[in-house]
């Protein structure tokens, strides 16, 4: 076997990423199913940062850095 499938089956880092991904997805689903007085979901997390100029600036800085890294550097 070769390619990302083989890597996913072998390396320990891929197992950790899989666990983290399952955790984020499971918690997101849990927040959506929680009912009227629901748990804060991913939209609430983003909106928390957008409430003030400082939070919005921090979010935009992280967004810009991620974009530069993904589209102009490493991958």
């Amino acid at each position, binding site marked *: 076997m070769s390619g*990302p499938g083989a*890597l996913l089956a072998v*390396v*320990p*880092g*891929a197992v*950790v*990423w899989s666990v*983290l991904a399952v*955790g*984020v997805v499971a*918690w997101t689903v849990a*927040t959506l199913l*929680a009912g*009227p*007085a*629901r*748990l*804060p*979901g991913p939209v*609430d*997390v*983003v*909106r*928390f*940062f*957008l*409430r*003030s*100029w*400082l*939070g*919005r600036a921090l*979010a*935009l800085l992280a*967004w*810009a850095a*991620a*974009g*530069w*890294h*993904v*589209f*102009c*550097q*490493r*991958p």
Partner: protein
Amino acid sequence: MPVAVVLLTAFAWWEGARSRDSAAAHDSVAAMVVAVAVAAVVLGRGRQRVGSADWLAAARPRHVSRSRYEVGVAVWTVLLGAVVAWDLVSFIVQAHALPTLSYWIGHVIRYRLGRAVVFALWLGLGLYLAAGWRTEER
């Protein structure tokens, strides 16, 4: 609105054909960062919900009970902290056995369609961060 969607889709498709080392990719990403920052300032003048000094106080949304809010904050902090920490560890170690998050993203954006879709999502998120969750009145 439909015209803007078509233009942004065409732009993302064009970006999908750029390589990470090209000057066009660098210029276009830098231009989008500047444009989104300018949009945030122009659209947000006088329309921010709270001042920066009050940001962390009373952050709980009205529809969330206090106990659930505390549980939610704790779980999100653990999950997002674990993602950031594990990515940092993988980046520092630089081992084949510990791929970083950008390694996985690299498998998607090596193709034109993948790069275009990820770029469109990134740009959409940036526009939401610039214009979203404002008060209606200045």
